[in-house]
């Protein structure tokens, strides 16, 4: 086995230790043991990400495992967000009231399902073929639905149920697309579905277009692209904050990577224009649907959920455009969105302790009553809005410029207008949340603020570093690797 294969195996196996620990570790030590295992998992993920991104021209293309720059980027993001979610989970578990499960088992089940979710999530970018990627995505549904409904509250039950049914049906449609693709290739077993084999398979164009549309329409239900995004606002707002962060910052882009790989693998058969056009369509519709909701006064986590819809639309546009500028923007956008969005969700735990009304209503003036929490919320929302020097400002500029670069001026112009409108909506929410008039009189101590403040201190230099990286990335070997894909 090569170093990359060893590292990939370590990335997949290490989180499984967290599931075992959830079953056998003494209750008093459970959180500490799980955090140690999460550190080991994150180290393995970071090592693989560094190896994949340091040598972007060198790719590992096996039947079952793929290691490439795009996968390396996602592995790094999933590893980092998974670690941060594990670090803030003890605060969530201490503050939780009630659960879907028996009280004496709830903590163990939480940790076991969190690690199961993390493990299958890490498998998605590493899957060497479309079938295995589908299996990993479907497996994320089972684990994450339990986590979405973890609180056992009626609204959480609704959110978890809706998520389970809608995404499972969507993935059924995606599987139909995979089967049509396999039929178009004349059978041939697993080899026809590998990322290395698909671009060279001899496929009928008309059938492949149908398969591609079915595949993307099905994956859209999981990515949360409009118009099949109905589960997203409920699931993000009802899930425990550490899980919301994993859902938004890691799951959605990981599934999006499979859509990206499918586009790159099938473009030689159906044409670059068709393959990219479907993604651009999903991107523009998602942006168009998200913007009105960003203008409405929303509960904090619900606002972040609609922001996820917007950002998944932006990434879809970047992938659909596909040139070096747009793909550099995509890489920065995935990383920047992960940092800012995860921070926003983690800040929800102390926010709800500080102002319980935040669960169902928009909040105001948090910076006046709890300045540290206000700073965390402000940095998260400012970065997500694309307020300079946020890396998301640079990435959005790169993606729009990329649209012009590849000859899609109308789509790029529409995207620019929608992004400006989205910015205005989020900027208004930013001002209101941080320095607006405080609403409600019963403000309490923001329990669980310390780890969020520490994560904010890490997030700020990370966001600035991403902004700086965006300046040299378009000409880098990493972007050349992204453009080249797996073909």
């Amino acid at each position, binding site marked *: 086995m090569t170093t990359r294969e060893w590292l990939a195996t370590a990335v997949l196996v290490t989180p499984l230790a967290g599931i075992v620990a959830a079953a056998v570790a003494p209750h008093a030590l459970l959180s500490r043991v799980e955090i140690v295992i999460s550190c080991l998992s994150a180290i393995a993920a970071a090592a693989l990400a560094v190896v994949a991104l340091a040598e972007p021209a060198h790719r590992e293309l096996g039947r079952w495992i793929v290691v490439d720059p795009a996968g390396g980027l996602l592995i790094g993001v999933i590893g980092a967000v998974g670690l941060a979610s594990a670090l803030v989970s003890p605060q969530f578990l201490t503050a939780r009231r009630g659960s879907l499960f028996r009280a004496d088992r709830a903590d163990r089940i939480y940790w076991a399902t969190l690690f199961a979710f993390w493990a299958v999530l890490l498998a998605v970018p590493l899957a060497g073929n479309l079938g295995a990627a589908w*299996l990993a995505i479907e497996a994320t549904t*089972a684990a994450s639905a339990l986590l979405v409904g973890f609180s056992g509250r009626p609204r959480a*039950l609704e959110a978890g149920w809706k998520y*389970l*049914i809608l995404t499972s049906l969507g993935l*059924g449609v995606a599987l139909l697309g995979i089967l049509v693709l*396999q039929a178009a290739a*004349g059978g041939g077993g697993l080899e026809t579905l590998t990322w290395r084999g698909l671009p060279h398979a001899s496929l009928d164009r008309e059938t492949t277009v*149908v398969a591609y549309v079915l595949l993307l329409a099905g994956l859209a239900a999981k990515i949360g692209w409009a118009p099949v995004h109905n589960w997203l606002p409920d699931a993000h707002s009802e899930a425990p904050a550490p899980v919301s962060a994993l859902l938004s910052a890691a799951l959605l882009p990981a599934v999006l990577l499979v859509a990206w790989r499918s586009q790159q693998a099938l473009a030689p058969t159906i044409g670059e224009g068709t393959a990219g056009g479907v993604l651009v369509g999903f991107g523009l519709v998602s942006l168009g649907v998200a913007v009105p909701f960003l203008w409405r006064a929303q509960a904090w986590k619900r606002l972040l959920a609609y922001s996820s819809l917007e950002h998944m639309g932006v990434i879809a546009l970047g992938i659909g455009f596909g040139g070096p500028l747009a793909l550099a923007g995509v890489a920065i956008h995935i990383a920047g969105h992960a940092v800012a969005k995860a921070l926003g969700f983690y800040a929800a735990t102390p926010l709800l302790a500080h102002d319980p009304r935040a669960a169902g209503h928009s909040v105001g003036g948090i910076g006046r009553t709890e300045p540290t929490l206000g700073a965390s919320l402000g940095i998260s929302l400012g970065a997500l809005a694309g307020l300079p020097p946020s890396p998301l400002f640079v990435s959005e500029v790169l993606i729009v410029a990329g649209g012009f670069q590849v000859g899609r001026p109308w789509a790029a112009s529409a995207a620019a207008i929608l992004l400006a409108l989205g910015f205005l909506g989020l900027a208004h929410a930013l001002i209101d949340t941080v320095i607006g008039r405080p609403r409600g009189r019963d403000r309490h101590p923001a329990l669980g603020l310390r780890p969020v403040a520490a994560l904010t201190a890490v997030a700020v230099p990370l966001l600035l570093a991403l902004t700086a990286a965006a300046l040299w990335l378009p000409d880098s070997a990493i972007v050349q690797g992204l453009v080249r894909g797996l073909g």
Partner: protein
Amino acid sequence: MNGIAFALVALGIGVVVVRRRSIAVGLVTAQALLLAAAAFGEETSFDAAVAAAALVLRGVVLATLFLFLVRRTRETRPVRAGVAPLARAAAAVGLALTLIWLMPPLGLDSEAAERATLTLVAIGLVTAATRRATLFQVLGIVLVENGLALAALSLPGTSSLAIEIGVAVDLLLIALVAGVFHERIFAEFGAGDTAALRSLRDN
């Protein structure tokens, strides 16, 4: 294969119109067993035997789980669907005909298998969309997966056994998680009725 495809569709239509959960569970289980018979009848290779065994196992485990849930969550009367049985059947047939009309040839072994696959997917989607009972919505997913299993059996050449077994395991996991939710929803609202969930919405 034509006879089996016809029987699968007939059983699927039955799931759309029946009121009782246990009868619907019996119908989707019969579908799984028919699919297993088709897998075994096609050829006598090791792969075919494993695929058939996986389908039988999947069908039996799902039936056991669903019937266990039906027993644990006895309802005084079946949850009313928002749409009348004939209208549901008409919607399923209409969607199936639309899909068959829209889709080019899928490249499966026979035209009957292609039409039955698309019809079962349509029936599954309509079942999940028009039934309020939680268990029926899960059965909608199983119907879609049964249609996809038929497509996998009708692929030209070989298909990947590992992927097929993985799909069956994933479906079992989804059904298990749905079972956890179904029980909790029943405990919370006194019925496995998704209309009770929708009444929670305030916007």
